[in-house]
């Protein structure tokens, strides 16, 4: 049981990087960006291809991140310069990435067995895969969260936040809102690809399908984190979102342990997210009923 929990936390930390990326688009920019479904697989594909060619695993993670930045740039340009709605821009890049990911890997699945990954040095010290991943994941999440905290406190970061909040106001203050939307999408997808590169190494393979449903997992993590741990300050929110990703993985590990068919996971996740997103509405109904009851 403990082994399962440690594994869930380890994987959750790697997914937390992805959830932080989704936070940038979904909460800060107020855009639901579907590019991430392709980007997470892109990160895995680039890393897997480079690692199987015996290249430095951290270099492969860096290259995967850069590939993710470019994918975000693509969506950003489609949305702002060609005026394609954000949702559709994301879908277009996502679909295009499916072909690109197959090109990068050369086939639909690349195994990463008996190769040097970012976890290998720790494993050679006698640590298990889960513990190694726990360490790498914790360090990565902390570095990413601190970097985001700093960035969104700068003038440029505030300009992105203002753009997501109120584009009219942002333009009236001289902010080039198109460029801020692009920059937000670039950063977000860079983080998602980084996450994909680490996940592929953790699970010892990269698959062209590994991104399917990832936006829903990202949103689930985000919402679980916000609901359970609060959003009072930006610092708090970053921690909440990261913890949300871990909690999500623990929930999944527990329901699988309880005997749920793994094939039903995506259905389970979708229902969870639909429920969480509708809580304000449900709460409204309940409050209205209470008020009515009180009036009577």
């Amino acid at each position, binding site marked *: 049981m403990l082994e399962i929990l440690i594994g869930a936390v380890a994987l959750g930390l790697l997914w937390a990087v992805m959830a932080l990326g989704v936070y940038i688009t979904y909460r800060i920019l107020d855009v639901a960006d579907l590019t991430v479904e392709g980007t997470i697989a892109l990160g895995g594909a680039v890393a897997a291809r480079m690692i199987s060619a015996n290249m430095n695993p951290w270099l492969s993670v860096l290259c995967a991140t850069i590939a993710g930045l470019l994918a975000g740039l693509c969506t950003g340009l489609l949305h702002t310069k060609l005026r394609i709605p954000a949702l559709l821009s994301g879908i277009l890049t996502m679909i295009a990435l499916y072909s690109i990911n197959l090109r990068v890997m050369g086939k639909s699945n690349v195994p990463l067995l008996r190769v040097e990954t970012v976890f290998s040095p720790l494993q050679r010290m006698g640590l298990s895969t889960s513990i190694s991943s726990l360490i790498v994941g914790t360090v990565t999440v902390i570095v990413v969260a601190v970097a985001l905290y700093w*960035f969104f*406190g*700068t*003038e*440029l*970061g*505030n*300009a992105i*936040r*203002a753009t997501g*909040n*109120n584009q*009219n*106001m*942002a*333009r*009236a*203050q*001289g*902010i*080039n*809102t198109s460029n801020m939307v692009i920059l937000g999408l670039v950063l977000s997808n860079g983080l998602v690809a980084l996450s994909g590169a680490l996940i592929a190494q953790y699970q010892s393979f990269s698959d062209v399908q590994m991104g399917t449903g990832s936006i829903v997992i990202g949103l689930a993590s985000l919402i679980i984190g916000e609901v359970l741990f609060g959003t009072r300050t930006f610092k708090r929110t970053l921690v909440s979102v990261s913890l949300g990703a871990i909690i999500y993985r623990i929930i999944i590990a527990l329901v699988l342990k309880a005997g749920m068919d793994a094939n039903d996971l995506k259905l389970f996740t979708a229902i969870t997210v639909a429920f969480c997103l509708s809580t304000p509405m449900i709460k409204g109904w309940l409050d209205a009923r209470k008020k009515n009851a009180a009036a009577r």
Partner: protein
Amino acid sequence: MNKLDITGVHKTFNPGTINEKKALNDLNLHLQDGDFVQIIGGNGAGKSTMLNCLAGMFPVDAGTIVIDGEDVTRLPEYKRANLLGRVFQDPMMGTAANMNIEENLSLALHRGQKRGLRWAVTNEDRDFFSTQLKMLDLGLENRMTSKVGLLSGGQRQALTLLMATLRRPKILLLDEHTAALDPKTAAKVLELSEKIIAENHLTAMMVTHNMRDAIRHGNRLIMMHNGHIILDISGEEKKKLTVESLLEQFTKVSGSELANDRMLLS
């Protein structure tokens, strides 16, 4: 040199369709430094369209707009921002609701400038914001880390006004900025606008539907009808205006009754 030259500006919305609307029709307006112009007119006269064209929210079909010697006719909205301070009718429109007061002020402090990787709100900025907020006399200086979304409409509008003038604009645009407020708050925000404009010797344009406000404030009054200016009164002549004489002049110049329910009711 004039502070603003609008020359021969035309703007038609939805041209060639059933919804075609000539919003501005050969609009000409020239402002001197320090002018505070009141803009009145019926519904659809082109008052807000004129301000929005100035701000660059949409391109004009013909004509030129020159602000303080700089031709801005083809500049996008965000590039004109360093010249203009703007307050909108909707109190929600001028501020970022999910950001706190000091972050909003910091956005305004860098209006139209390059935004880099410096920390947005420094302690020095905080002191400056605090003294500025004290002048509003709303106690906002004690709530600098509160989200702006928690403020009332009047507070948000006062904050927007401060943001619009934090960096001195060449022209301050007030687009019915008190229309959405209750009468008492509206009077306070208007008084504040007058004070800020006078203290900083700003050039300002104010759209209003309240004739009494238009008569009481500013040194110049223009009336718009069908997309151009039909009446332009300033100086001593403006001081002598009354609501009745204005209505009478409107009927004479436009050949129609002033069709603006809000104006007649107020």
